[in-house]
């Protein structure tokens, strides 16, 4: 089998930046990713990426991809990693469709939306239940909806839906709402919004589409009639496919200043790591750093 110098896993801001650096270092490499852009593609308005006073997530991702494509980079899109194995001198990366080998890896697999883990959630995904208020919100015009979560992303979803829906239940499993005072006040002041604190979701009910959400508060269950459910309960790292590597209590891959992981030859960058602060510009910077570290590591190895 052909052995690459490097395989980059993930094509968000970290992975794409690593790829641009790898191309400029003339490394023989491959990118393997489920999608292009990762979470950046889902971002609304971005006003803190240097050089762009204002740009939308999809536009910034389009710019990233355009930059990457000028180097003719080989991108395997639509591939999900199912396993990584250390052979003698190389790592074997396996997806449902293919197997590749490389001397070093950079993991930039990012994060994904956390799921509720309740009955009905999987069944009604995209049938009224969604993890992206920005994308799917407009389909719930004039409807009654529930937003699940208590952080700023949940508040943001409520604010978006205030312009679209008829009635909004905000179901929060803690005693107080997120820390952004401005957002919190707008939400609690609205007559359209009913905030239900200290409540957890029990199940999602419906026929073809969502019809009801069952919640529990002080051990008492109640049923709310809704046509839409927006799940905004945070993110989890996409790090399950690599079990034998050091992670923190959140499941983030632990890296040092050089983006080295606990496994020599495996580097990681961006939101999948324990880097403090998750920002597009930080992920991009980390991606470049990981690539330069990987390049240096390769140069020092006595590979055949």
């Amino acid at each position: 089998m052909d052995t690459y110098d490097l395989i980059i896993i993930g094509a968000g801001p970290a992975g794409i930046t690593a790829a641009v650096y790898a191309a400029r270092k003339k490394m023989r490499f491959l990118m393997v990713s489920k999608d292009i852009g990762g979470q950046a593609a889902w971002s609304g308005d971005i006003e803190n990426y240097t050089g762009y006073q204002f740009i939308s997530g999809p536009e910034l991702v389009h710019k990233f991809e355009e930059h990457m494509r000028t180097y003719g980079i080989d991108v395997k899109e639509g591939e999900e990693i199912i396993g990584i194995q250390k052979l003698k001198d190389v790592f074997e990366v396996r997806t449902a469709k293919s197997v590749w080998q490389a001397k070093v890896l950079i993991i930039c697999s990012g994060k994904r939306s956390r799921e509720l883990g309740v009955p009905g959630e999987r069944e009604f995904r995209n049938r009224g239940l969604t993890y992206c208020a920005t994308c799917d919100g407009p389909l719930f015009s004039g409807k009654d909806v529930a937003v699940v979560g208590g952080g700023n992303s949940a508040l943001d979803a409520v604010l978006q839906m205030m312009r679209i829906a008829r009635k909004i239940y905000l179901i929060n499993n803690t005693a107080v709402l997120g820390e952004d005072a401005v957002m919190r006040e707008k939400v609690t002041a609205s007559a359209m919004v009913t905030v239900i604190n200290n409540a957890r979701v029990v199940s999602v009910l419906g026929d073809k589409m969502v019809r009801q959400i069952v919640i529990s508060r002080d051990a008492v269950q109640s049923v709310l009639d809704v046509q839409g459910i927006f799940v905004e309960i945070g993110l989890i790292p996409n790090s399950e496919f690599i079990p034998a590597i050091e992670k923190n209590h959140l499941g983030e891959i632990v890296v040092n200043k050089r983006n080295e992981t606990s496994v020599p030859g495996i580097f990681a960058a961006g939101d999948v790591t324990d880097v403090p602060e998750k920002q597009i510009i930080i992920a991009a910077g980390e991606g470049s750093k990981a690539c330069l570290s990987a390049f240096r590591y390769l140069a020092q190895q006595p590979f055949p």
Partner: protein
Amino acid sequence: MAKDVKVYSTPTCPYCVRVKQFLKDNNVVFQDMDVSVNQAMAAEMISKSGQMGVPVLDIDGDIIVGFDKGKIQQSLGL
């Protein structure tokens, strides 16, 4: 004869933006159905696809949910 291609989308969904860019890059003419402003179109999309996620493509009656490049290429013969 060119196929009749409709893209049901919202302006804020990233895969909608990407699927439309992909079609443009391949010189495919399509009708952009913005379901965020037109409830009738939204209802049409839901009844055709049996779900509420965007984007949905209707290629001569062939319904594709999401930015599934492989299926789109196959359906359009690209």
